[in-house]
């Protein structure tokens, strides 16, 4: 399955990965100006940790046995049996915050986009249905985010 690997050695701490993630999920044509002017904008699925010269981007690990999926009360959080990707079915999500608490990495938040009826769980979905290659990997200015293909389903 595909995974995003972050290389701390080359991370600039610029935060562009988060900018593009949020923008793409808010405006699929990647018009950043329009996306950022929306009254409601989806939170990014990737965040940058910084301390002095150290920086690295964190995103959902698409775990083998995801706590978020296990704890989801409506079955909105699912792990795709073929690709291994963990994603949230927005229709079913009731924003109960269980997955947010359950995730040991803190990679889930509750957010609402311009076309959403209600807030819902939001996290990295490997840009499912939005981009062939995750946009953070594409746009990282220093190639510090790498998409790796791993053997078998997670």
């Amino acid at each position, binding site marked *: 399955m595909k995974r995003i690997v972050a290389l701390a050695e*080359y991370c600039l*701490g610029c935060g*562009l990965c988060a900018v593009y993630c949020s923008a793409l999920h808010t405006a699929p044509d990647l018009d*950043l*100006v329009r996306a*950022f002017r929306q009254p409601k904008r989806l939170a990014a699925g990737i965040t940058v940790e910084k301390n002095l*010269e150290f920086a690295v981007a964190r995103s959902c690990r698409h775990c083998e046995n995801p706590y978020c999926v296990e704890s989801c009360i409506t079955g909105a959080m699912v792990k795709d049996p073929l690709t291994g990707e963990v994603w949230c079915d927005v229709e079913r999500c009731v924003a109960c915050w269980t997955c947010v608490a359950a995730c040991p990495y803190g990679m889930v938040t509750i957010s609402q986009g311009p076309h959403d009826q209600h807030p819902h769980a939001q996290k990295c979905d490997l840009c499912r249905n939005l981009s062939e290659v995750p946009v953070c990997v594409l*746009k990282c200015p220093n*190639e510090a985010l790498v998409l790796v293909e791993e053997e078998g389903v997670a």
Partner: protein
Amino acid sequence: MALNLIRPQFIVERDRERCIDCRVCENQCANGVHRWDQTRREMTLDTSQCVNCHRCVVMCPTEALTVVATPHRFRDNANWTDKAIYEIYHQAATGQVLLTSMGNDRAHHIYWDHLLLNACQVTNPPIDPLREPMELKTFVGAKPDRLLNQRGEIEDDLPPQVELEIPVMFSAMSLGSISLNVHKALARAAQELGICYNTGEGGLHKDLRQYGKNTIVQVASGRFGVDIDYLRAGSAIEIKIGQGAKPGIGGHLPGSKVSSQISETRMIPRGTDAISPAPHHDIYSIEDLKQLVYSLKEAVRYQKPVGVKIAAVHNVAAIASGVARAGADFIAIDGYRGGTGAAPLRTRDNVGIPIEFALAAVDNRLREEGIRHRLSIIAAGSIRNSADVIKAIALGADAVYIGTAALLAVGCHMCQKCYTGKCNWGIATQDPWLTKRVNPDVASRRLINLLRAWEHEIKEMLGGMGINSLDSLRSNRLMLRGINLSDKEREILGVLAAGE
């Protein structure tokens, strides 16, 4: 506190329609120009710190930023220009020597652009590089007078050579003036391309020893990092007598750029200024140089070429002749446009001569004396593109060095502030927050792309001249014609006028 007379040189314009307050400009500017104002909830800036490096402009995801030269000017004065006035203000404020970086930026003639190339028509068919072999292989090193000795046999010990797949190498840029990541990129690219990069006077980092076959190690006046392992690590040794940007003075690395990594590699204390002496204090004359050349040859058991790098100065032809007779296997001549990490402004802008003339003069003189084959000539000092490479070879060079062009490929924006150690592109700095900005994978790829592109262009131009081997372009002045040159300039360059 007295008045600060220095006004900001640049204005950063922010298009508020496009700015999305992502704060990337803020976290990327090492000079602290951009700032998020919490109370007004918008981006604000201190333009006085801007050095026009374009980092924020390039990184801004919505292209909301532009940097322009300030329209704030003094009254028009062709003698006391804005630049001349500000230089006085700086010195009055600090009492210091004005420093600068990169190469001479004055508006003198660029003589490469006054030379035109030939192409074959009718009497001689041009050669198609896509269909016919086109050979760019070059050997740097001394060549023997003849193939066979008196007994009719080939000599066993031919002088050692450095074999290059293309006649372009990366110029000496010390570890210290630039970061280890850039050195890694240069080393990897040199290996991939089958050429060499030069360590410069900062020593050879242990992580780079594996690229020894593609490394020229430099022995400069400060002798930083020079020990027996260092000498044996590379494929050639270069004694640095001078460099084009600052003939007559030594290297200068401000203490702020001497990190622990630099300290270890150069074998000097952390935080101390690394100022190389002007001369090598054991080379005060040509006979002293000969001694050093041979000591180095002994140290590597005559297995590697030992050459000398000099700046292009007034009597460069005579100096080159002396260098050849001192046993050097190659001579690198650095013209006045050569780049540097740090140099006094006055020296950079006023000392030295153009490489085009120096190269032609040296080639002529060595041929007149019948000793041109005793060493290879490497030309440097602003080789900007593949046409400059071709012209340099036609004027007599065996190969060229590129320094500035390589850094531009890696991302440099020529702001000329390398000496501050705050290179926003992560190139001319040791600050770990900044050096990350050069990913050696990305940078080496860009360097390889640059030289592969030049390689193709060179082959196209060669084929156009009806030549299929670079051997037949060396010193072939008849392939050049001069345009907008005085008679004297043409005479020195040894080229006819266009139309002749």
